[in-house]
């Protein structure tokens, strides 16, 4: 390793920005195809064959559609929709009802306990923060957390008493739905 290793130049796809060899796993391989045929024909030898075949298909399709114009159009439309939905990723999951408690260390020996997800149980956050503040005799406030969600920040480390308090004050919240975050992992409180 005496001489400088030269930086490797990687061919990135102009459409999806990934290295060209990963296009097939990218978000939209279909869109990358024309770019790939043009810029990296060696990587996907099948692609060119396919595109040729596709063109042939198109010609035959055209011939068919001229024959029976109305019938040919309808079955192809729903098919396209189905395909489209899949690469877009999963359909948004319904939000799980759970309360997540995290301790954030603020100043070496001071910390803040954040409580997320109480609103999913129909608890008014402003009321809840007031109650928490009163119970633990600390400051508690409703704060906009990441991803635009509101959460309650309570000063001080109350992570152990808080579970009992939540289940006592709001019986709707089962203690199985309360989680701690420890070392970035979710740990059930109960």
């Amino acid at each position, binding site marked *: 390793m005496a001489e400088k*290793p030269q*930086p*490797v130049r*990687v061919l990135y796809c102009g459409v999806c*920005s990934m*290295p060209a060899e*990963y296009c097939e796993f990218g978000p939209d391989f279909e869109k990358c195809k024309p770019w790939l045929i043009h810029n990296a024909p060696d990587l996907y030898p099948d692609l060119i064959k396919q595109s040729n075949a596709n063109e042939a298909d198109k010609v035959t399709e055209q011939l068919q559609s001229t024959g029976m114009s109305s019938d040919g159009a309808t079955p192809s439309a729903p098919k396209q929709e189905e395909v489209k939905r899949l690469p877009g*990723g999963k359909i948004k999951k319904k939000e799980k009802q759970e309360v997540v408690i995290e301790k954030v260390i603020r100043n070496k020996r001071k910390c803040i306990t954040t409580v997320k997800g109480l609103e999913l149980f129909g608890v008014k956050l402003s009321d809840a923060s007031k109650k928490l503040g009163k119970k633990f005799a600390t400051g508690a406030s409703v704060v906009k957390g*990441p991803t635009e969600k509101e959460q309650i920040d309570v000063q001080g480390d109350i992570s152990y008493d808080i579970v009992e308090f939540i289940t006592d004050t709001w019986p709707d919240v089962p203690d199985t739905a309360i989680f701690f975050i420890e070392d970035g992992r979710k740990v059930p409180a109960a």
Partner: protein
Amino acid sequence: MFKKFSSEEVSAQNQVKASVQRKIRQSIAEEYPGLEPVLDELLPKKSALVVAKCQNHLNLVLVNDVPLFFNIRDGPYMPTLRLLHQYPNIMKKFQVDRGAIKFVLAGANIMCPGLTSPGGALDEEVEAETPVAIMAEGKQHALAIGFTKMSAKDIKSINKGIGVDNMHYLNDGLWKMERLN
């Protein structure tokens, strides 16, 4: 980790002190000895090094607005994939089989069977909690950067569950952020 990552998550950007800069350089050089000859080019001594603090105790090391390294809390510095593609031999490599690629590219952690199957490969020397490059069967370039949860030997013998945490993968938020401004 970077699945949803954008410049909005950067809470503060600081030009760091020379002493901190030296420390960062040193730890990078220790972690990646193969990078040492080009380190002067990557992190020029003259130009300012900027550290961007982000949410979840994440730090990005920027040079000329380009993210080059990241670390979590006080963990080891890891190169971004764009940098790793340029200097692929600086990290220990793991290889996953073809079936795992699409999951890894969706942000999944790397499970042991994907590494031990015929399409996968392991670097025997890797201990737990070290950064590794994740390569893929039949591909030249890395597709992710991971942080091992078990040592390579354990991965082989246990062969179950998460072997490597996926830190940064192709087309995630950090990948898309070529420059930060």
